[in-house]
């Protein structure tokens, strides 16, 4: 019987009421008295030397208040990078400066050069057109492998080369891995591209800076997934504003998918300019601007090799990846191809020896950083594609090959530095096979064939590491931040609660699901719990929402704070009932004394806390408010099995997704409806990557797919109804809720299922030479693959 409230119930989302009636409050809905508008004049060339900027005509244009250039930022810090990777030789990565407005050079199309502040957005735009730029075009490097050749143009003149780092993992295992390859009975090799994507949250980025001269306080309203992180980075590293004089508010945010984690130049600019002109300054990105200024995702080129023994056991894995950083290091960019990717190369398998090499490269393109899954989709795609290819080469069933190599005992320490606490990969695979009627596939394929279509089935497993945390561990790995989460639970005199969380909701429904948890713990109505997030002025220092960490880390902090509340409330209840504290039980919002019929209601206790007339004041402070910071001791490891069935039109190469099934193990579930929704969204993004999406640059560094005319977003008719299941549950062993995180799984696990399915379809159609097709699998690429010699 599904629950109707509390943990495990599909409570309807309370935030929907404002979103469905047009009463959300997104950043662009904020308009401050006297606000001015900024328009950024951005580079239209990928690489160039700035010889001169003449703003004199533009300054005379109507409505112009002030025009800023790189000169105005000479004494100001650049955008900081939050993660330092150490290379194979023990040296720190090369870390170039990242100015707010270009200093001397432009390095990618979209690099901001000038900022025009005017009375209206249209006036700022018009004036920007009157700025005379003298920029000498320099040769650009776009291709990663070309960028690391001797004599390649350098993106940053002050660096030795375009190589950010050459990372080996685990360097000490390299020789043993190579030896295992020499001894292997079979080696499967695959070269593949994990193409660059644009995250495309539907709400473009917005920033509104405000300054109060009377108190010397700055406020930034911004479309962020982590306002405290922005406050710290911008305050301490860029503008030199102490945190107590800086407030960052991220109100309703229209999707993030990683792209709104990072600290961007426009945020620092609006905060800086508001003080400079003593008026609020607002910037709203157009979609075209988003395409050339939001951090993009993925962009790996990889060679992966899998070694097997004569019994088809995986004996070693070796990869070499080129990872594009773009022109500058975005906030967490260096961590994505390394610690969020290399550590996942074991997948669900007990491969004993693994060596991962990653070369991160600067190019004259938009910076790349975490996008839904961040490193884990890249790892999963390589691994699940190479296993499928191995199965094909060996003539064995791809599911059986996987099963034979599954990790089955937990905890399991992988050879790539992480320890899976729990899981059951056979269970999710069993569930998946039950969902898809694999036995009926041959009949379905025959039916397709009769219609002249090629049907294929792709199956894969995935594992990911999320609930991204342990501060101590990530610190060792180069993070310049902690990764705990925080919550303050404030109980009011009349019994209602406000939970102030460091997590941020931008579509995940925390206002509902977090309230379910707290209400369940106390046994009160969910409506009595209010969740507050997104404002540094009224929430404790938090690290924000990404890496599917909100419930696993932020939810755990909230549980800990609520436990402290309950412990104190029990003391008050014991006093009120003149009983021993140890005998007090809390159930359904009532405190009782074990073995008696005495009871006091939750509201009586909360009232006593704030009207402490009959109260143990000598032992206990009045009030009922607690804060907890939670820093877990491991990541969480959601895992599962995905299947995709496609039909390929052999005349056109067009792929149609007929069905997609996902069997996930997310541990315990708080709100199944929300979890399903998270998986659906992830699947659409994974299918989008597999079939449609691509940031295509030409050789001059122009982004060819820079609008929705050319960047193919998945639309409603590109995707099917999905079958999702999360009944396989191995609860996380190290957080109090036993939850694992579900935000990214769909995007991580789905691309290989689609590509496996298309390759399968082509083989069934007699195109047995096709071993791989690079994403996106457009009709053109599929048709070409079929017809290549």
């Amino acid at each position, binding site marked *: 019987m599904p629950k109707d409230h509390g943990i495990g119930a*599909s409570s*309807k*989302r309370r*935030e*929907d*009421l*404002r*979103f*469905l*009636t*047009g*009463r*959300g*409050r*997104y950043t*662009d*809905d904020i*308009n401050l008295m006297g606000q001015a508008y900024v328009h950024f004049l951005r580079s239209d060339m990928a690489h160039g030397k700035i010889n001169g900027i003449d703003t004199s005509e533009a300054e005379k244009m109507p409505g112009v208040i002030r025009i800023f250039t790189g000169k105005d930022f000479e004494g100001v810090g650049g955008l900081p990078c939050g993660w330092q990777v150490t290379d194979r030789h023990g040296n720190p990565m090369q870390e170039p400066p990242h100015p707010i407005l270009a200093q001397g050079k432009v390095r990618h199309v979209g690099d901001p050069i000038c900022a025009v502040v005017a009375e209206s957005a*249209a006036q700022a735009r018009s004036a920007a057109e009157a700025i005379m730029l003298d920029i000498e075009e320099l040769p650009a490097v776009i291709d990663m492998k070309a960028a690391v050749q001797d004599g390649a143009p350098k993106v940053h003149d002050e660096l030795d080369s375009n190589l950010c780092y050459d990372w080996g993992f685990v360097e000490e295992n390299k020789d043993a891995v190579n030896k295992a390859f020499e001894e292997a009975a079979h080696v499967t090799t695959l070269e593949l591209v994990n193409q660059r994507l644009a995250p*495309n*949250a*539907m*709400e*473009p980025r917005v920033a509104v800076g405000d300054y109060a001269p009377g108190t010397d306080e700055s406020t930034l309203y911004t479309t962020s997934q982590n306002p405290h992180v922005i406050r710290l980075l911008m305050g301490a590293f860029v503008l030199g504003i102490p945190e107590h004089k800086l407030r960052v508010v991220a109100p*309703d*945010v*229209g*999707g993030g*998918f990683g792209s709104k984690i990072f600290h961007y130049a426009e945020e620092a600019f609006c905060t800086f300019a508001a003080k400079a002109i003593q008026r609020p300054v607002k910037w709203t990105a*157009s*979609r*075209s601007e988003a395409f050339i200024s939001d951090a993009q995702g993925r962009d790996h080129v990889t060679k992966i090799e899998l070694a097997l023994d004569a019994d088809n056991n995986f004996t070693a894995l070796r990869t070499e990846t080129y990872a594009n950083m773009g022109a500058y290091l975005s906030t967490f960019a260096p961590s994505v191809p390394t610690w969020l990717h290399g550590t996942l190369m074991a997948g669900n398998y007990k491969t004993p020896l693994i060596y991962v090499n990653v070369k991160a490269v600067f190019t004259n393109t938009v910076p790349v950083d975490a996008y839904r899954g961040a490193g884990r989709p890249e790892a999963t795609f390589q691994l699940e594609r190479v296993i499928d290819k191995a199965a094909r080469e060996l003539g064995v069933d791809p599911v059986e090959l996987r099963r034979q190599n599954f990790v089955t005992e937990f905890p399991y320490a992988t050879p790539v530095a992480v320890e899976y606490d729990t899981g059951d990969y056979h269970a999710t695979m069993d569930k998946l096979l039950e969902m898809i009627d694999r036995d009926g596939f041959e009949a379905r394929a025959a039916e397709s064939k009769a219609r002249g279509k090629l049907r294929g089935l792709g199956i894969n497993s995935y594992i990911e590491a999320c609930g991204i945390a342990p501060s101590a561990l990530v610190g060792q790995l180069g993070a310049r931040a902690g990764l705990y989460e925080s919550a303050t639970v404030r109980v009011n005199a009349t019994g209602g609660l406000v939970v102030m969380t460091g997590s941020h909701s*931008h*579509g*995940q429904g925390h206002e509902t699901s977090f309230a379910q948890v707290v209400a369940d713990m106390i046994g009160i109505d969910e409506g009595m719990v209010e969740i507050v997030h997104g404002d540094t002025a009224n929430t404790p220092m938090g690290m924000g929402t990404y890496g599917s960490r909100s419930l696993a880390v932020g939810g755990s902090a909230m549980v800990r704070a609520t436990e402290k509340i309950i412990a104190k409330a029990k003391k008050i209840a014991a006093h009120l009932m003149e009983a021993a504290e140890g005998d007090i039980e809390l159930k359904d919002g009532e405190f009782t004394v074990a073995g008696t019929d005495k009871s006091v209601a939750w509201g009586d206790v909360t009232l006593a806390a704030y009207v402490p007339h009959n109260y143990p004041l000598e032992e206990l402070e009045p009030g009922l408010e607690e804060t907890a910071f939670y820093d877990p001791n491991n990541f969480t490891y959601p895992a599962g099995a995905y299947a995709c069935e496609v039909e390929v039109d052999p005349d056109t190469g067009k792929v149609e997704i007929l069905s997609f099934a996902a069997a996930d193990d997310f541990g315990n579930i708080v709100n*199944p*409806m*929300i979890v*399903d*929704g998270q998986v*659906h*969204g*992830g699947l*659409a*993004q994974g299918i989008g990557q597999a079939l449609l999406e691509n940031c295509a640059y030409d050789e001059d560094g122009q982004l060819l797919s820079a*609008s*929705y*005319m050319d960047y193919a*977003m*998945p*639309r*409603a*008719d590109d*995707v099917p*109804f*999905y*079958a*999702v*299941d999360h009944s396989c549950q191995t609860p996380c062993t190290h957080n109090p809720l036993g939850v694992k995180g579900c935000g990214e799984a*769909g995007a991580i696990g789905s691309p290989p299922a689609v590509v496996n399915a298309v390759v399968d379809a082509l083989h069934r159609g007699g195109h047995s030479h096709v071993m791989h097709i690079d994403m996106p699998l457009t009709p053109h690429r599929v048709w070409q693959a079929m017809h290549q010699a």
Partner: protein
Amino acid sequence: MTQVTMTVNGKTVSGDVEGRTLLAEFLREGLKMTGTHIGCDTSQCGACVVHMNGEAVKSCSVLALDAEGAEVKTIEGMANPDGSLSTIQQAFQDHHGLQCGFCTPGMVMSAAALLKDNPKPTEREIREYLEGNICRCTGYHNIVKAIMAASGQDVGAIAAE
């Protein structure tokens, strides 16, 4: 600047606009009705869909001046007169047809226009009709399901909530 007058959600409103002002901008900035969203600059995303004289239009591709005298309905005018959610809005909540909420105003307005013309659309018809509305969060599953449910169809058999 030219004065423009129209009816928005039953109320007569007017304001001064430039020739280039879009209806979406007039609603958001002139009237401070921020329920209508702007998600792109190429008329592709549908976040800005409103009804003009009963037809769904992308308000980012209509000049405010061209709405002179028009009857405009926006997401702010979709609830029942007593303030409760209309059938379509309620179905979106019941079936989790929204996550971040940014595409939602356009989705609801498009859905309402579809159901007016086609009271019992098939899954395929809904998916095709929503061609001009992009959602990055939901994967469309629950949006399609919500619209089917709003049209009175049994969605119990569709996999998962």
